[in-house]
């Protein structure tokens, strides 16, 4: 069976930006398949609202397990017959000076932020290539574009996503598949939840639009890049940072 509506996979769609992207794509009448390590109230609510799994599919997946990621993509293909969009959103942030960072924290960030995106992209391309169409959005970060103390490993993984985006866009563009990067700046999320009011005020002062971003600011761009409105856009990195000057 092939679904009539377009199907999107969102990694790490249970909270924060991923949750906002899932909600936005569902609102725009896409079928959304998401995974995360555990259920959140948002996931439980979505599953309860769609017991026949017609619009929303979720699975508990260890994002660091390539086999599990490939299995999830295959399951989505079997269930809906197509994969039209992929949002590589899943990420973990381990901040701290590099010399003080534990090996395990470095490995975890490289695995979750970069390797999982590569493996999931490869798995989804196996559905997109036969279709001759597809759109992928990698969630990078402004930290991949400019230096910031304490996030060197995170920045390295997010910069690597830009390299992945640009090369893969050239590789699969002839097959009708587009890949772009979104680089969010500071926005209200779990990752910035620990900021003090002073820190937030300082970020706002250095932002021409004088505020932190919202997850909706980012989700809107993700939707645009996935949509036919962006049919001639590929291999691009677009910052959503209010013009943050660093």
């Amino acid at each position, binding site marked *: 069976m092939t679904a009539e509506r377009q199907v999107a996979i969102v990694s790490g769609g249970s909270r924060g930006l991923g949750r906002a992207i899932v909600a936005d794509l569902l609102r725009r009448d896409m079928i959304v398949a998401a995974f995360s390590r555990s259920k959140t109230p948002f996931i439980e609510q979505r599953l309860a609202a769609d017991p026949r799994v017609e619009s929303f599919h979720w699975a508990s997946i260890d994002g660091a397990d390539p086999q599990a990621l490939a299995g999830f993509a295959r399951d989505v293909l079997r269930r809906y017959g197509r994969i039209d969009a992929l949002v590589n959103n899943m990420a973990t942030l381990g901040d701290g000076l590099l010399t003080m960072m534990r090996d395990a924290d470095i490995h975890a960030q490289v695995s979750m932020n970069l390797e999982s995106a590569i493996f999931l992209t490869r798995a989804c391309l196996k559905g997109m290539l036969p279709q001759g169409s597809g759109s992928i959005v990698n969630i990078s970060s402004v930290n991949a574009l400019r230096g910031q103390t304490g996030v060197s490993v995170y920045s390295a993984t997010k910069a690597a996503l830009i390299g992945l985006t640009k090369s893969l866009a050239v*590789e699969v563009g002839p097959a009708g598949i587009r890949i772009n990067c979104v680089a969010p700046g500071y926005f209200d999320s779990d990752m910035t939840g620990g900021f003090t009011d002073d820190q937030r005020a300082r970020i706002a002062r250095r932002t021409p639009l004088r505020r932190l971003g919202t997850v909706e600011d980012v989700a809107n761009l993700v939707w645009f890049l996935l949509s036919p409105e962006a049919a001639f856009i590929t291999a691009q990195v677009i910052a959503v940072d209010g013009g943050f000057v660093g």
Partner: protein
Amino acid sequence: MENLNETILAVVLDVVQEKSPEIEAVRPDQMLVEDLGLRSLDLARIIAKLEMKLDVDPFAELVAVTSIRTPGDLSAAYAKCFSTDEEPKGTGPICAKHPSGRSAANRTRPPRAGLASQRELRQKARGEQSQ
């Protein structure tokens, strides 16, 4: 084995005809690049289509994709994958097999002799997706 070969030829022909509609049939011994005009991305598309049809990926571990030069090479690679059905226990997996609830036998149509026509091959390529 013949039905597997024909399935592979059908998928190859499907991709070849997107670039060269005038080609009506492909043979197992034709060179994918030199004779059929395919590029590496076309081969990736063929392998992706075959993975969706056959639920196996011989290139995950068993076969180097760089060794594939003809449709016959593809057939040999997938035949190795399916041959694991008869492997004695304990030999370990030699290719990625995906649990699907479908057996290898009902993934392909009954064997037919000879080189299939364009229409037959295209019907096969499309029809089997709905099985």
